[in-house]
């Protein structure tokens, strides 16, 4: 199971926030994934600045640790700190060396995780329903043009914040994915990446999709090419949504084992596991199609 949703506003005249649209879509799919919920939202960028969302620890609200991390990130020009639930959010000066930044923050404790970094991207997720996600983070107040969301039914790894989705491609700014399905060559791929020193944060096979795409993009592939290569290189069932600073896309495995539908009009693109998520959130007369086996599409914002 699991439910995934994505939305891209093409024209900028939509009066509702991206957060409220994705929340409405997720609410319709809450029954597909009662374990946890999350969204990756893309807002307006600030010049030469990045936004970080940091998980303080599995025990949630940890003010002492938030203080420690604030001290650690001062040298990165960090400011505008806010603490919500298990998250510390702040803005810091753009850097080419995210690896040092992430290692520095995560040195604060072994259950500390930099959940996302990006010019536009802000990723929040937690155990519980989409309604709980709204209650904790007030995602419906988030303005932007595109984003993706996920409701999780865990089938292969523990239920906690880090194992929830979306996944940020750790170290690659503004790249986030949501995945419905199973990646059956996960262990083989993971061993290959780990031999190259890439760290995995979870036992969740969906994390490999974010790692895989980040790796391809680092090697110079563009987003459509990177997504197309999942068809040949990932095994198993997958319907994935991928979002970057400037694009939203989907890819479906060549056996079409998981559902995924999409609608495109002159004003928006909506993608979801089931049509019920689209009809429940977006009024109007437009048609919806199921993605075909092995189909990949990318829309630029």
């Amino acid at each position, binding site marked *: 199971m699991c439910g995934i949703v994505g939305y891209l506003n093409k024209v900028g005249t939509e009066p509702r926030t991206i957060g409220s649209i994705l929340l409405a879509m997720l609410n319709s799919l809450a029954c597909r994934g009662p374990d946890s919920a999350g969204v990756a939202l893309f807002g307006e960028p600030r010049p030469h600045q990045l936004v970080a969302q940091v998980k303080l620890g599995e025990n949630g609200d940890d003010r002492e640790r938030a203080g420690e991390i604030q001290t650690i990130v001062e040298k990165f020009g960090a400011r505008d700190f806010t603490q919500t639930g298990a998250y510390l959010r702040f803005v810091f000066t753009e850097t080419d060396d995210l690896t040092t930044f992430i290692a520095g923050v995560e040195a604060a404790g072994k259950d500390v995780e930099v959940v996302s970094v990006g010019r536009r991207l802000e990723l929040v997720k937690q155990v519980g329903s989409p309604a709980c996600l709204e209650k904790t983070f007030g995602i419906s107040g988030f303005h932007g043009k595109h984003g993706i969301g996920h409701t999780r039914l865990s089938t292969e790894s523990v239920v906690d914040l880090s194992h929830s989705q979306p996944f940020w491609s750790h170290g690659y700014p503004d790249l986030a994915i949501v995945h419905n399905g199973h990646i059956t060559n996960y262990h083989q791929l993971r061993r290959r990446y780990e031999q190259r020193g890439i760290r995995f944060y979870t036992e969740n096979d969906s994390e490999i999709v974010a790692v895989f795409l980040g790796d391809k993009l680092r090697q110079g592939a563009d987003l459509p090419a990177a997504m197309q290569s999942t068809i040949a290189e990932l095994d198993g069932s997958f319907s994935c949504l991928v979002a970057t600073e400037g694009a939203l896309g989907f890819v479906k495995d*060549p*056996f*079409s084992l998981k*559902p995924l*539908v999409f609608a495109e009009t002159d004003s928006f693109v909506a993608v979801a596991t*089931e*049509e*019920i998520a*689209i*009809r*429940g959130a977006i009024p109007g007369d437009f*048609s*919806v*199609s*199921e*993605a*075909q*086996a*092995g189909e990949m599409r990318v829309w630029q914002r």
Partner: protein
Amino acid sequence: MAEIDAAGRSTRELNSAIRRLIAESSKEITVRNPGARHNLAVAILDEVHILVGGSVGYYCGGLIDGASIEIEGSAGWGVAESMLSGTVRVHGNVGSGAAAAIRGGTVVIHGDAAARLGVSMKGGTVIVAGNCGYMAGFMAQKGTLIVCGDAGEAFADSMYATTCYVGGKIANLGTDAVLAPLDSSEAEQLEQTLTCYLPPSLRGAKPAAADFKKVVAGRKLWNFDKRDWRIWQEAL
């Protein structure tokens, strides 16, 4: 005509309401605001016409015997699955597994179909005005599968005795699927079927029946023969 507003009501309530109206001898039932929810109008065993004013989710019209169901929007997975007789018409597109395992009746899709259209069908007729996706007709046993547009990969794989007609391009044929000649009387019959079930606006844009490709089983998989082991290696 009886009307049911689906907004804010559970699927169980809606299906009960449909059954109640049928018990009160309604012959025409309209369901408004279906909101793409699942399992609407399943296992209807009476000759009624149910018009659904919008999109439906999974398994709409599944297991029906004799009912006629018209969906004005699109349909999710498994529309009309395992129906025995009757008609299911979808104005929009359909998800994977449409008309899977039907035993009879007619399924008409005005838009496109996703993967596994008409798999394991054991009778009946499936007509798609648009294109169909991956592995349509897989292991289909009887009946007729008509696709006016293009067919996806592995078309008609491992079939028994279903007859398929494709108006457009076939991405590739599945294991043991072969092209067969279409004679004039058969083309005439196909033309009649298409004219009967497709609205003129849709029929007009599609190829003439005589230009359809006919696909049947090559019968190589019907009986195991160790001399044919290569084909078994490739068969799913």
